[in-house]
């Protein structure tokens, strides 16, 4: 177990280095010379060269990368072009807003998908299965931001039940998930975020359970007279490692992929920040946000793998 965990953790380091290389490359592939934007039109070529040296941009690329990496490791993600604020602070603040709704959405989607997936697998081919599969396909196929827009049309415009955007009058300052006056702002973002993972996880659960139910040991369980309910419990226990894996994957996708949904609801999370960075072509902000999100995604995957090895003894041995 410890050997496996240590191996898995060590293997994460090159991945994280790769992530930083890609994030570093983002600035390189951005068109335009960053120095030209800082200079006044009247400045000379010598001014440009001096400024270039001051920012370390006259160094060869690998050197530039290591200088940048050194700064990142101590938590310096550079300065936003738009408002001259440190990127790190801005990203971390937004990140907390994103993580909470992502966690709620994925937990909700997980519980519902287990429920629906098991029903669909047990009633394979029947009406319940077909209905659940249809909802799942809808969840996978629907563009999440369009779902968000539709939710706004129905619940904010037509029914006036929920607020359309934002986090309430007080902003994120004293937002509380335990008070309805605040929570109602989060209901639609959570719903829009939860549907795609719900669709994917329901399908995975359905096929996993259906496969287990076909195995010999299930027949043995039935033969020895267990009730259908406890047979299903056995099946669920068997797909748990798989279920945990997909849960982690979906959480990662939500944290990274909530950009469009957050934009529609102007939810002040990382997605909204990314949208801002894209609109204002604020490359340092874009780079910093992507770096934080990708790192989070890698760490979540690591955590999930370790959890899995705790649950499933077969993984430890291999």
């Amino acid at each position, binding site marked *: 177990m410890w050997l496996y965990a240590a191996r898995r953790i060590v293997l994460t380091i*090159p*991945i*994280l280095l*790769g*992530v930083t*290389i*890609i*994030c570093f490359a*983002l*600035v390189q*592939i*951005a*068109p335009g010379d960053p120095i030209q934007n800082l200079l006044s039109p009247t400045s000379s070529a010598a001014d440009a060269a001096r400024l270039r040296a001051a920012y370390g941009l006259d160094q060869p690329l690998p050197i530039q990368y290591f200088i940048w990496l050194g700064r990142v490791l101590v938590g310096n993600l550079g300065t936003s072009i738009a408002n001259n604020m440190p990127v790190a602070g801005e990203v971390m603040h937004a990140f907390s807003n994103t993580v909470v709704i992502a966690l709620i959405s994925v937990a909700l989607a997980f519980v519902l998908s287990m429920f629906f997936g098991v029903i669909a697998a047990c009633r394979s081919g029947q009406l319940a299965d077909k209905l659940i599969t249809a909802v799942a*396909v*809808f969840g*996978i*196929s*629907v*563009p*999440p*931001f*369009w779902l968000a*827009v*539709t939710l*706004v*049309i129905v619940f904010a*415009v*037509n029914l006036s039940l929920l607020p359309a955007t934002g986090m309430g009058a007080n902003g994120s300052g004293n937002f509380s998930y335990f008070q309805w006056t605040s929570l109602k702002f989060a209901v639609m973002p959570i719903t829009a975020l939860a549907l795609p993972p719900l669709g994917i996880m329901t399908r995975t659960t359905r*096929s996993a359970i259906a496969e287990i139910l076909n195995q010999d040991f299930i027949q043995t369980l039935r033969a020895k007279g267990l009730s259908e309910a406890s047979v299903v419990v056995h099946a669920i226990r068997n797909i748990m490692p798989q279920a945990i894996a997909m849960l982690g994957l979906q959480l*990662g*996708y939500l*944290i*990274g*992929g909530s*950009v*469009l949904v957050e*934009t*529609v609801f102007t939810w002040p999370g990382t997605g909204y920040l*990314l*949208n801002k*960075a*894209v*609109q204002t*072509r604020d*490359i340092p902000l*874009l780079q910093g946000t*992507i770096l934080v*999100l*990708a790192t989070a*995604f*890698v760490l979540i*995957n690591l955590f999930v793998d370790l959890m899995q090895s705790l649950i499933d003894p077969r993984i430890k041995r291999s």
Partner: protein
Amino acid sequence: MSEIVADSFRQPVRDPVSLVPVRSYWGSVWQRLRFDYVTLFCLAVILLIVASAVFAPWLAPMDPDKSSMAYRLRPVGYRNFMLGTDEQGRDMLSRLLYGGRISLTMGILPVMLSTLIGGLFGVVAGYYGGKINMAIMRTMDVFFAFPSILLAIAISGSLGGGITNQLLTLTVVLIPPLCRVAETATTQVRTMDFVDAARSTGASTMSILFTHVLINVISPVLVYASTLVSVSIILASGLSFLGLGVSPPTADWGLMLATLRQSIYVQPLVSAIPGIAILVTSIAFNLVSDGLRQAMDVRA
């Protein structure tokens, strides 16, 4: 009879097709598709959407870019605007037809390109194994550290908007998963006895690759690629929604959705139309790829 069934198609006995003993692989795939009405229906829907995009210049009742301030945001069915008008008074139906051209291209072209590139890398990695495999697959692992939409926004956000950049971005985003599928399939095939047999008869690497490996790798890769079409459409529309796609006034479903978002209070139904188009197309592609997977007997 049960032997024939088990050997040829692994289908239940009630399938009349499986009683026919000998048929080529693609022949049997088609035979199974013939009775899969959901897939056939979705295939028809896709053909319809593709045809409407291809023949947009003949089908569109009006110029998709001609705006008119007098007819802004008219409801569905207003005079001769069958689907109403958008925020600049342009005919929605015409824009939808023309928009399909870009949206479908962005669904299909990146998948084709990344299937070629990713598939090539995957087959090479899987066939040669060892260091080459390490180098290729570990590089791909780094890309897997990004959720696809995040990677798309990262690349597209740096490169800037525009249709070429969007195409480039989507291709890069879709290469790693295809490479991984191709690699897995190739590694499996490579260790099979018939490949060893071919090698022992003195067949060259190229001829083994083309006659034995590729033919067995192609169906899982194609099935997987077909599931990526709807992913690509949704990613592309997401990028356009953020302003990272075609530049206005060109019609594109994602962009239409983005600009009409401001009008949901005035014309909710009209604002929802581009989204419905994306949804229908993506469901159709998803169900067709499901059907293909079953017909080609590829495990997900």
